């Protein structure tokens, strides 16, 4: 039964997104637009034997994936809760975890779309020098690594309204993106930002992505993201229980 129900839940989520595509402007069009602009300017500058476009695909790609997986499930949960739709799901015979997992799963195709559009933009500017296997690995790492951020989005969605959730999540994502070097390399940022960055999970996800295209250690970043997942999952569970009561 669960697979069938999961399928229905994902389908409903996808229908909702497809029928109101304007909601995707900030989470899809904006990151891709920014990437296209930056990659056309800095994409040819290579570092460590890897083109700027390829490196930016990892860092901007992190931002692009997060703008979908952090925002969409979180705002979706808040919207459902405000409408009373979440309550309708809670009293149904489906464990709520299935509904929430469907929200995350439904966000993934759009995250893939963002990465694909960025890849096309990088290739179009002649600044992409990664193999298909590398690109697939990068995509998979960013998708899996975005799980704690999806949980964080839902933790906020359980507490705040849809508009407030959008504002809060943007207030988290934008500064984190800047301070983690997702838009511009940390090397050209003030030193203080470089010192803050290692404390941010977004930084570690981007580094994990970069490691796929230019090599480098991954253990530290994986451990930080695992710890983040555990902490955020606990926060999301408390937040859900609070909302349920």
């Amino acid at each position: 039964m669960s697979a069938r129900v999961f399928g229905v839940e994902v389908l409903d989520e996808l229908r909702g997104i497809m029928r109101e595509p304007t909601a995707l402007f900030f989470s899809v069009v904006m990151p891709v637009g920014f990437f296209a602009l930056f990659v056309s300017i800095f994409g040819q500058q290579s570092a460590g034997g890897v083109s700027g476009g390829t490196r930016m695909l990892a860092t901007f790609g992190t931002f692009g994936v997060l703008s979908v997986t952090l925002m969409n499930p979180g705002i979706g949960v808040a919207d459902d809760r405000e409408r009373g739709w979440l309550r309708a799901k809670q009293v149904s015979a489906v464990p709520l975890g299935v509904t929430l997992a469907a929200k995350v799963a439904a966000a993934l195709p759009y995250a893939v779309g963002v990465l694909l559009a960025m890849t096309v933009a990088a290739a179009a500017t002649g600044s992409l020098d990664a193999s298909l296997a590398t690109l697939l690995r990068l995509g998979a790492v960013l998708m899996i690594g975005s799980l704690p951020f999806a949980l964080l989005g839902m933790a906020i969605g359980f507490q705040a309204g849809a508009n407030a959730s959008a504002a809060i999540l943007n207030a988290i994502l934008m500064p984190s993106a800047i301070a983690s070097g997702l838009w511009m390399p940390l090397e050209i940022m003030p030193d203080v930002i470089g010192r803050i960055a290692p404390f941010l999970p977004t930084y570690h996800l981007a580094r994990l992505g970069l490691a796929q295209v230019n090599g480098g250690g991954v253990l530290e970043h994986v451990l930080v993201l695992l710890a983040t997942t555990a902490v955020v999952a606990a926060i999301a569970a408390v937040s859900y229980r609070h909302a349920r009561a």
Partner: protein
Amino acid sequence: MSTVLEVQGARHRYGATVALDGVDLAVEAGECVALLGPNGAGKTTLVNLAVGLLPVHEGRVRVAGGDPRIAATRRHLGVMQQSTGFPRTLKVGELVAGAAVRAGMRRSAAGQVMAEVGLTDLASRRAGKLSGGQRQRVALAMALVGDPALLILDEPTGGLDVSARRVFWQTLAQRRERGAGVLLTTHLIEESAAVAERVVVLHEGRVLAADRPDALVARLPERTVIARTNLDAQRLRALPGVVSVDTGSELVRLGTRSPEALLRVLLAEDPDLSDLRVEGARLEEAVMSLTDTATMEVTA
């Protein structure tokens, strides 16, 4: 007859506030029980326990023999909330089919239920374009589609016009004939008197009374004298045996325990008295009398 909802000694607290204080309640298969009481009586908390949204701090709650906190038990439950806002982009047919799958049924079950509640023509309409009454019908279809043993209906007829209300109660009667039990909460007390076999009156987290509607009304010795009169409210209040005066409409309603004596005085005082009739108390008055008495006892 099997018990589809069983609540035994249920207690629930919100911090230091006791919302339910040892409530017992049972709904049998095919039975309709109306849950009545003033705001803050504990109705919502009791419903939330029954649908598994809240844990019972003491006592026991069972739906079709199972714990409603467990998702599988809620297959036996159909819930119609006071106001459900559906995702505006989903179509009626998709909503009801989704509810069917969540309840472990085939998607095709949705078509049958939509026909039953008169939604077939609206199947491809998006939820965002439905009227209040249409949304209530969708909510009913979603509650019914799993063929539940217990239906919990929270203010189910708000927003329905007279004819939709008739269809609603007819549909429910058919389900009850097939064995579904119903727990109904409503502010339309006279409506509950018409459809419920039993009425449970809650007050400050306790059951004040649980009986047939007519038996509850019979407990109240008050009668209502209704008439069109020229006497003003002050004069009416001063008449012998009058315990309440309602001048809210063209006809005045006078509550009394000795209608014969009151009628004699009224006829003597107002030669133009017309449209005169005497009615027994209504369920609403019986419920108010019960809760007022309980409040006065607590205050004393």
